[in-house]
């Protein structure tokens, strides 16, 4: 895959926004890959957690917001507790979801769910799903 890294991307206000909302300093990542090595969700991801951090450093907004990965992460915090640089990767991924959800781009459409589907799972599953995947 060819990736164009340009100065214009590096000045993208998106980078600052991700850092501010996640409370993380993206530039301390040295790409050891420990987050991706331990992530239970990688088989359902198109951009791996360490790549998410690299893309965010470089301002690849569209690639990140269109990725499957941000909806495969269940915030299990394994990456956070293992990062040798103390980056909370789960917080960065949460912010990527939030950037979409705050524009009402819901991942789960509650009104399209049938009653049977809702009754099939306990309230703890529904509430956490709606909190994470809807605006």
């Amino acid at each position, binding site marked *: 895959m060819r990736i164009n890294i340009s100065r214009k991307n590096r000045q993208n206000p998106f980078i600052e926004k991700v850092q*501010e*909302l*996640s*409370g993380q300093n993206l530039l301390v990542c040295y790409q050891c890959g420990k987050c991706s090595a331990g992530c*239970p*969700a990688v*088989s*359902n991801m198109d951009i791996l957690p360490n790549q998410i951090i690299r893309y965010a450093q470089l301002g690849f907004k569209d690639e990140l917001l269109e990725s499957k990965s941000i909806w*495969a992460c*269940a*915030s*299990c*915090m*394994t990456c*956070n*507790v293992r990062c040798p640089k103390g980056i*909370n990767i*789960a*917080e960065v991924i*949460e*912010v990527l979801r*939030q950037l979409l959800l705050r524009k009402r781009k819901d*991942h*789960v459409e509650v009104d399209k769910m049938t009653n049977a*589907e809702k009754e099939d*799972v*306990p*309230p*703890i*599953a*529904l*509430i*956490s*799903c709606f*909190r*994470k*995947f809807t605006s």
Partner: protein
Amino acid sequence: MKLAYFPGCTLKNHAKNFEDSALCALNKLGVEVEELHRWNCCGTVFSLATDDLIHHVAPVRNMIRAKELNTDKLMTMCAMCYNTLKRSNERMKKDAESLDIINDLMYEEEVKYKGDVEVLHLLEVLRDGIHFTAVSEKIKTPLQGLKVASYYGCYLVRPKEIGFDNQENPTILDELMALCGATPIDFPYKVECCGAYLTVDKPEIIAERTNQIIGSVVKKGAEVVVVSCPLCAFNLDQRQKVTKKIFPDFKNIPVLYFTQLLAISLGCSENDLGLNLHHIDPRPILKEKGLI
């Protein structure tokens, strides 16, 4: 000892057996429990975005409910409630500006929250409040010969600042099961995420995880799994149905709340165990071991 108790949504329906067995066990241990009056949903997940203050209102309001019972300790047993309540509470303790904003949002509350409640998980209460040695003295029916795999999942142990045990190799459940007389079975996926709420939109992902986690438990020779989270319980127990469909070699195994086994060992009756609420029926193996 009297404890303020926050049940959370699922312990009143799908996980009624978690609540009933825990309350019976605490009663046998001589602990009086008082449920918070007018408690509200904690929100189930902690808000990870720095500016998302509104979602801390729900957990913090429960701290006020605890203060109204004249206590500064709040006990819960659901791992997700514990994680959300404790993390929001810790943020309020450290961040006076956010606490002010949250108090302003709850201007109709008579009590202002000062960050002075401590959130405890039932396991912490058993280990550090009642003490494990005192629990072991009250064991009436040891779980002789029962091989138990303890699954910790995510929210009980992570992140570092809230967990009361090691993040990579927690042992508190295994210790408790051992003192109840069971044989703890170690397995490599005890802190691997079950997929949590992805169960709503992607049950097939849960099937993959359940196959991996339960498959490992079975390979290690365990007879039952214990958990402390109603969502883990749902994914590892109810989702065995879809797991079996996708992975025909998958072997079923009962999944229980740790409190149900604790309650059995402390002499609670079957009425307090809610053993009929499971997808994979735990009664045959418990009968075989002479425990019910």
